[in-house]
């Protein structure tokens, strides 16, 4: 448990991706089986562990502690698991040494073997045997609140770093194996052959597209390519075989539990690649709804009946990897699509449809189509080589994405915050605003925040402006001068705009970044909120 707890402590406070990868790879290398496998499962969200209610934990603490002192402590720390880990009787002074504390695997096995009436005393016993930081890790695991900014993808990358094997290979195996993944580690360390999977109903690494860049298409014959709309949803993979039905995000996170409406409607076997959207399928003649509607359904473990009614989900299919248990990834795109069409034909009409092909004969024609798509939820076109096999990863050539151009506005820097790691001495996170009509006249209202898009040299300029023009400080945040005739104008590029109840301005940008520093402009030349709300109306209208 100690090694896992130490890893958690470091991961929580390490902002950089590379730093996290180093910590993870070191952990997987140095920790024995089966602990590391359970650690991996805990980080990547695949650990099945008996859960404990916070109320029981509180009861356990109060068996030994004055409730007033506990309340003072909880008020100060603000997190129940952390408070309990810190105030638990015994403290740090008489801990059992690291080698004799329960191992992560013991904790998992023990918890999962308990009957209902045994949980209380077992948890008490474990809290007594663990040190402060291990107690914290244990409490986070059993309350199911492990939020440490490590995705399954990152964990797989760390396994790849540690072993030299490819991420797609690891990814495929991963979903066919269960914790503690001993055969996986044996193979990663070269001690055993690659494990053989029993079923295709697992996650397979997805094929990705490259953005179209200047000159890319000129060399290519449009007749060799097919085009589809690029819908603004999330990429998913549906796997179904032998009664096992799963829905995965494009990074391999299992999101089955959040989409019972889609998964419950699967009546076919195979592995399908597609876009998850909300609204109605093309076949049901209901409109596809926006990404912000889809967001209502994302990042949830479970879903209410009302959510299912208000935001019905469906999958717009565009590729087939396995037909039943037959791997057809080596077939051409058109052949796979033909077989996919047959499957979708027989699937429930309200939950599945087939992504349309967009006919075109020249690249110029496709460019015109891309700029003016027929549906506001389309964000461009996908271009796929007709004879391309399905290959995991981002190869240059077979698949392209050609998005409509980003939106741009001129906004005024309002607040700045220091960055992390390499940027900890720079003001590199900027909140920017635009002009809005208020009862007191025109004022700047914040509309978003961006922390990339600029070069290192531009960051020097931005940072200097912040330091020289600070008018107020709120903890780590500085307010800067932003007046009609003095301030810093930023050209902000973004992918889309949503209505937001959380932001005062009523709008939220997607993927905003600093496109240019507009040293040539004054704040009074910046855009107005009405420009943004007009974009919103254009989209929904």
């Amino acid at each position, binding site marked *: 448990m100690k090694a896992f707890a130490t890893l958690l402590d470091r991961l929580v*406070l390490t902002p950089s991706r590379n730093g996290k990868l180093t910590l993870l790879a070191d952990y997987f290398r140095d920790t024995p089986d089966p602990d590391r496998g359970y650690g991996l499962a805990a980080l990547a969200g695949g650990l099945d562990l008996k859960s404990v209610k916070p109320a029981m934990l509180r009861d356990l603490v109060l068996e030994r502690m004055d409730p007033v002192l506990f309340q*003072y402590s909880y008020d100060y720390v603000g997190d129940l698991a952390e408070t309990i880990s810190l105030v638990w009787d015994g403290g740090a002074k008489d801990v059992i040494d690291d080698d004799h504390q329960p191992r992560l695997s013991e904790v998992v096995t023990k918890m999962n073997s308990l009957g209902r009436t045994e949980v209380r005393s077992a948890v008490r016993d474990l809290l007594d045997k663990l040190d402060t930081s291990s107690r914290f890790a244990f409490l986070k695991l059993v309350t199911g609140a492990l939020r440490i900014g490590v995705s399954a993808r990152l964990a797989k990358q760390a396994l790849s770093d540690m072993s030299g094997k490819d991420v797609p290979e690891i990814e495929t195996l991963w979903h066919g194996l269960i914790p503690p993944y001993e055969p996986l580690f044996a193979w990663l360390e070269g001690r055993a052959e690659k494990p053989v999977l029993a079923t295709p109903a697992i996650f397979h690494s997805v094929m990705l597209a490259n953005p179209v860049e200047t000159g890319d298409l000129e060399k290519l014959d449009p007749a060799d390519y097919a085009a589809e709309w690029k819908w603004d949803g999330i990429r998913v993979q549906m796997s179904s075989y032998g009664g096992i039905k799963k829905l995965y995000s494009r990074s391999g996170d299992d999101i089955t539990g959040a989409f019972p409406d889609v998964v419950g409607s699967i009546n076919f076997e195979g592995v399908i690649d597609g876009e998850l959207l909300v609204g109605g399928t093309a076949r049901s003649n209901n409109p596809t709804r926006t990404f912000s509607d889809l967001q209502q359904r994302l990042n949830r473990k479970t879903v209410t009946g009302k959510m299912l009614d208000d935001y019905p989900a469906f999958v717009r299919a565009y590729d087939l990897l396995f037909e039943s248990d037959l791997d057809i990834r080596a077939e051409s795109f058109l052949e796979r699509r033909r077989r996919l069409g047959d499957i979708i034909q027989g699937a429930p009409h309200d939950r599945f449809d087939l992504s349309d092909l967009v006919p075109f004969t020249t690249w110029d024609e496709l460019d015109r189509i891309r700029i003016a798509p027929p549906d506001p939820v389309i964000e461009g076109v996908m271009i796929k080589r007709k004879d391309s096999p399905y290959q995991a990863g981002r190869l240059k050539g077979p698949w392209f994405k050609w998005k409509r151009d980003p939106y741009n506005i001129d906004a005024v820097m309002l607040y700045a915050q220091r960055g992390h790691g390499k940027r900890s001495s720079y003001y590199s996170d900027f909140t920017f605003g635009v002009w809005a009509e208020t009862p007191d006249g025109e004022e700047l209202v914040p509309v978003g925040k961006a922390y990339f898009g600029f070069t290192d040299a531009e960051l020097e300029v931005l940072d200097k402006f912040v330091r020289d023009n600070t008018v107020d400080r709120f903890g780590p945040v500085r307010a800067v001068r932003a007046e009609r005739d003095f301030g810093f104008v930023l050209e902000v590029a973004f992918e889309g705009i949503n209505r937001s109840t959380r932001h005062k301005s009523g709008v939220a940008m997607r993927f905003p970044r600093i496109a240019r520093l507009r040293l040539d402009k004054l704040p009074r030349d910046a855009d107005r909120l009405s420009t943004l709300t007009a974009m919103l109306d254009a989209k929904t209208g």
Partner: protein
Amino acid sequence: MKPEALLHPTPAGLFCPIGRFHVDPVRPVERALITHGHSDHARAGHAKVLATRQTLDIMRLRYGEDFCGEEQAAAFGEEIDVDGVRVSFHPAGHVLGSAQIAIEKDGLRIVVSGDYKRGIDPTCAPFEPVACDVFITEATFGLPVFHHPDPKDEIDKLLTSLKQFPERSHLVGAYALGKAQRVIRLIRDCGYSEPIFIHGALAKLCDYYAGQGIDLGDIRPATIEKSSPDTFKGAVIVGPPSAFQDRWARRFNEPLIAFASGWMMVRQRAKQGGVELPLVISDHCDWPELLSTIKEIGPSEVWVTHGREEALVRWCELKNIPARPLHLVGYEDEGD
């Protein structure tokens, strides 16, 4: 005599009307008795100052020659008469020169402990319990959540990180007086003998500690040498935490921010401060040390000064020890 007649809180700090002196006053006064050199306790501008030799030296280093009108040095254990009140200084184990002050009149003894700790610290004299009627304790870490671990385990975290991230400059935040020197000494005690680089703000105090016989090993200023930009790769640099957010920190390669402080016990505190590697090293008592000190001294009354008074007062109530908070203002735990 009631204890309040001998010593009571005033806006300027604790005041003894009989001896006409203040303890650790927060504004200039006629006569000040100072427990230790941290800037919230030791301020410049008093007419007369009575403190240990080391505390006086530290005040001079920080505020200059004219930090007070007239100084008087107190040796540990020496009894000094101040206008009919008997005072004596005893080690507090907080930082170099730190003292508790015992104040006695007509058989009533009050001990002002100042800031203190019970853990081992090779950079200062260890805390000495003094029997008394009223014990005035700090409560900086006066909550049951605070359990300071063995500082050497914390330094091991730093040394492990140096191995894991050999490219990155490890910036260790530590307050200039006491903590910085203790951390450097601890790093040495854990077997690290490479040069340690320090921010300019630490130079005078590190020199002073070395002059007082506390060996800090090879200490170098963290100034840029144009000839070798790689000097700081994988190096340990100690400086005041505020400097790490300053342009000063840009000279370092992918800096990894560590912070040596008792506050680092709470993850959210570390996270808010942008600290990647929290080192729980404190110059104050943790919760169990506060409780064991009160039990050991066994005063008939406990007064709680700055920090988390309410929890410690609550604990005393549960143990039937009369206790009250003094609500002193102006002490900002600079030392941690």
